[in-house]
């Protein structure tokens, strides 16, 4: 983990500008067993120092791939020069007010390295389990992926601290062939926040999830195409999380609001049914740690929860310090950078639609003719809130009962239209944390949601 050479450099900060100095290390571990062959066996580490200087609204940023006091001095100087150069081309002058909170946050966790041999053994054990128990699969892949961020942040006029975010996952992918010889595939990510020992100390605990995945693959190989058109669907919790992140979350990032997103003219207006409340959680949910806790961002803002939609009314945006000032909202700690070389930009943390009162069984039983959409492989949305999610796992619902599995399909809609059709919400939330959000830089994010009944456009043949 990083040794603190950052805090002592605060003495070098210039007067009259706002400065954040950040030491940052990213670490990755990757092992891939494809049909039992070790095709990837890699480790990587990158570290460096960055500085961002705000000179009356002109931002200068500089980073160096070295972690030394000399590197800190160099980036402070270069960032200051960049800000000054830019200020000559910019008319608008803004100096942000000092943050209300200026404290030093304690280290939140430890990063513990695991030797590569143990990681390979874990993958081998899971692969052996799959190949022995399910020899009829066309193919299987076991992938271990670990990434961690270790950051020391020191700001001129906000909080400082040393915070880490380790996470690790095993991805199990299975393929089978339909009776026509066409391959179908599903994957499941197992793991979460923490180190190897937090998630994989007993690999046998993963077997039940692997068994469930196999059943779904067998269902899918007998699957049918969805019928294209507007349908009544039950979105599973993972799909609900994707909706929260992609379709709504991005439109309420304040930098994108400033760019013209649909959330701009809809503030304090109804954008969803009254059953929908959505929050970007900082570090806790229901008294327990959120999937990827964020205690402070890379501007030194202490992270707090951000309520975005309350009972169907759009009530807030996610902000950095600059947009918070512009929109007269609190800065909530959403400005983050992925690596030492990345400037902080507004990112989601643990974005979630809150649970309702119905059970999942009640939701499914309520649908006469529709679909149950469980897992998504990817998703995108634009500023109008038009979204698309790939659906990798789903089933027909006929007369309130689960029917045949679906082959891969896609759903789409306009978020603020579609959310108004939500008329039942389940009483539990499913979270995921293995994904990356792409917005200039990658970022690890958590997302979650309940089951929801709604109307949605589905693609099919």
């Amino acid at each position: 983990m990083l040794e603190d050479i950052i805090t002592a450099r605060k003495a070098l900060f210039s007067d009259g500008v706002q400065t954040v100095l950040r030491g940052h290390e990213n670490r990755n571990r990757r092992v891939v067993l494809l049909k039992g062959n070790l095709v990837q066996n890699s480790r990587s580490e990158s570290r460096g120092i960055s500085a961002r200087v705000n000179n009356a609204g002109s931002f200068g940023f500089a980073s160096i791939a070295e972690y030394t006091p000399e590197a800190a001095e160099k980036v402070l100087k270069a960032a200051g020069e960049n800000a000054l150069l830019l200020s000559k081309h910019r008319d608008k002058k803004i100096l942000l007010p000092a943050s209300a909170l200026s404290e030093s946050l304690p280290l939140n966790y430890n990063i513990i390295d695991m030797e590569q041999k143990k990681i390979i053994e874990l993958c081998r054990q899971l692969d052996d389990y799959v190949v022995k128990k399910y020899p009829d699969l066309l193919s299987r892949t076991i992938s271990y992926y670990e990434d961690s961020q270790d950051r020391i942040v020191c700001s001129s006029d906000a909080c400082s601290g040393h915070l880490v975010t380790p996470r690790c996952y095993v991805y199990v992918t299975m393929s089978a062939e339909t009776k026509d010889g066409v391959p179908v595939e599903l994957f499941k990510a197992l793991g979460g926040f923490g180190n190897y020992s937090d998630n994989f100390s007993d690999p046998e605990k993963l077997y039940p999830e692997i068994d469930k995945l196999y059943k779904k693959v067998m269902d899918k190989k007998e699957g049918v195409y969805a019928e294209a058109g507007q349908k009544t669907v039950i979105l599973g919790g993972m799909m609900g999380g994707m909706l929260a992140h992609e379709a709504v979350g991005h439109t309420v990032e304040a930098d994108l609001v400033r760019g013209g997103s649909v959330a701009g003219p809809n503030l304090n207006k109804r954008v969803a049914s009254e059953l929908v409340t959505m929050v970007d959680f900082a570090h806790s949910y229901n008294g327990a740690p959120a999937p990827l806790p964020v205690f402070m961002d890379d501007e030194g803002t202490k992270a707090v929860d951000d309520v975005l939609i309350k009972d169907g009314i759009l009530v807030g945006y996610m902000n950095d310090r600059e947009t918070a000032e512009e929109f007269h909202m609190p800065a909530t700690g959403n400005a983050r950078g992925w690596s030492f070389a990345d400037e902080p930009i507004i990112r989601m943390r643990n974005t979630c639609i809150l649970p309702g009162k119905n059970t999942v069984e009640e939701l499914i039983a309520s649908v006469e003719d529709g679909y149950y959409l469980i897992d998504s492989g990817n998703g995108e949305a634009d500023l109008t809130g038009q979204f698309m999610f790939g659906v990798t796992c789903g089933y027909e619902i006929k007369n309130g009962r689960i029917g045949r599995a679906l082959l891969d399909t896609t759903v789409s809609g306009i978020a603020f239209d579609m959310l108004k059709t939500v008329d039942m919400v389940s009483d539990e939330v499913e979270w995921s944390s293995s994904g990356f959000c792409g917005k200039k830089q990658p970022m690890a994010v958590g997302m979650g949601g309940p089951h929801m009944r709604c109307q949605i456009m589905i693609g099919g043949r």
Partner: protein
Amino acid sequence: MNGLRDTAGLMDGILKEQDIRKYTYTLSRSEKQELNLENGDFKLMRTVFNNSAYLRVFMNDRMGSVNGNDISREGLEQLAKDAVSAAESATEDPCHDIAPDQGSDVFRQGVTEPDIDRFLERIKEFLDVVKNEYPKINLMATIGAFDRWTWISRNSNGTEFEAFAGQYSFSLEFSASEGDRTTGIDYLGFSTADLDTPFIDMVDIRRRLENVQNSLDPQTLDGKFEGCVILTPATAADMVMTTIYNYASEGVVLDGTSQWLDKVGEQVASEKLTVSFKPYDERIIMGERGTANGFRAEEVTLIDKGVLNTLWLSLYGSKKTGRPLVKYTGSDLVIEGGDKTLEELIASVDKGIIMGGFSGGQPGANGEFSGVAKNSFLIENGKISGAITETMVSGNLGEAFKNIRGITKEQRCNGSTVVPYIAIDGIVISGK
């Protein structure tokens, strides 16, 4: 920018000290100067100095690989230790290997000494043109960057490649608005080695800005029909690359899910389609020179007049399957132009769309795709009749490229790919 020969000498010494006899490594050093604009205002100037070291070692047919960005003696020593540790943890697999001796070469690409003042002038000039000629356009995010880097790659068989390279790049995220009406976002970017041409005249920027301005009143379609989809060059590049990854890349060949496993030498697409990687094409600024396996990059035509020439296998995949090796691992895509103009293609379509973007689920191994047509226009009776929204398209990648109606002579070159418009029949297009 100074070369890395001294650091490579240090690396060689460390490998020798640690008795590592079979290896390949690449060391690089890079600099970035990046100007970020938000809604047309200068927002942030960013400078990045980075290093990287990539090392693969082989211990009795066991392979381990490591990456890092600390290229000091201490950092490289640790990297070598970690690589050995990873390799010793692996199982033996003689198919992991390195390229035989490729000799020595020094590559110089693009421009390594930038004219930053001229670059800033070009950016300001672009902003002025957009403001004056395209008043409904919002330039949400504009990034202009100059990147330069040097790298050196050596392996234990004697290969040494060294490179000095640099380029300007310019990218935009933009939409249009008027009153309360806002369009979706379009994205574009290009790279260039010179600043001779105003940015507004690069690639197809004017056409893209006009298309977005003309999308403020999109229509929704009723029901569904099977029609012709004209892929714009950006969309065509994405869909062709997805097809290649889905059917011909190493992963799907090794796991046995490729639908083209036994199709080499056979017709897999329309005879109008020829798909190559051309790293030495003069229109491509930063073509690959050394492959990820350590070979000198070679041009390859994967699909020649619709016939699958080869699967896209690396040294590992080739040794594992006994199939031919492809000495290319980059993305310098060139799709040959056809014999039509865009106007002729549009005039030939009774009912269909011209699709400027595709937002869809990742197709499964069977190639089935469905998703939303973005930045798209309806074509009726040979004419563009207006922008569309909430429209989905679906089909099968393999089948789609067998049903090519026509390809334009015009190819779009953005500095890294060269791609025409491609019109495909038989795609399911569905509205509300």
